[in-house]
């Protein structure tokens, strides 16, 4: 199982804070996961465009070619604006 969480605009556009997805070996990296999620609908496609999207695996920011494993927590969110 993968736990996928969303924050800020990304969460608002898809109107969900988190989803769980069954892990399969076809989900080889983050880009594959992103493409799978985009296929869920137009709002997912809008929310998960790569140009303004950051991604973290197990609470560490990382790149799109990062490989996934069962049990990972994946987070999608826009560039950060704290401080």
């Amino acid at each position, binding site marked *: 199982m993968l736990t996928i969480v969303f924050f800020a605009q990304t969460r608002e556009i898809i109107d969900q804070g988190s989803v769980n997805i069954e892990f399969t070996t076809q989900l080889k990296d983050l880009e594959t996961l992103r493409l799978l999620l985009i296929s869920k609908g137009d709002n997912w496609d809008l929310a998960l465009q790569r140009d303004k999207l950051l991604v973290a695996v197990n*609470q560490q920011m990382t790149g799109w070619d990062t490989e996934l494993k069962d049990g990972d927590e994946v987070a999608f969110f826009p*560039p*950060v*604006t704290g*401080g």
Partner: protein
Amino acid sequence: MIKVQQNDFDIAKLYQQLTDNQLNPNGYGAIVTFVGKVRDFNQQQHVSAMALEHYPGMTEKSLQQIIEQAKARWPIGEPIIIHRVGELQPGDQIVYIGVTSAHRKAAFEACEFLIDYLKIKAPFWKKEQTDTGYQWVDARDLDQHAASKWIEQ
């Protein structure tokens, strides 16, 4: 010390913690603090309120990583970072950073490094209430630029 909290913070108490702390020896004669407050304008628009969201767990971890980087780079005591989340009003304090060191240069530089890196690496997101409704704040290239100066050659 790192705290992500809804409540306001007391600068005088934090100063005491920063300077009384056993982790910050008396030989540390330089204390630099930064406080960020909510502005009542942004991008030419009047801001009447703000909401701050974060990623519980990852936010604290990323702040700890930024602190570790600063400690590896400058001879400083244990810094304090406080960041507020939730509903805030113009004039409210948002962020506190306190750094101690033996001399001012390291304390100034480490404090600036901490706020510059916090702004581009720590998962916080601001949403502002303006005359045209609530809108998420866009990340600014200026902040990326400010942080890029700390990249070691």
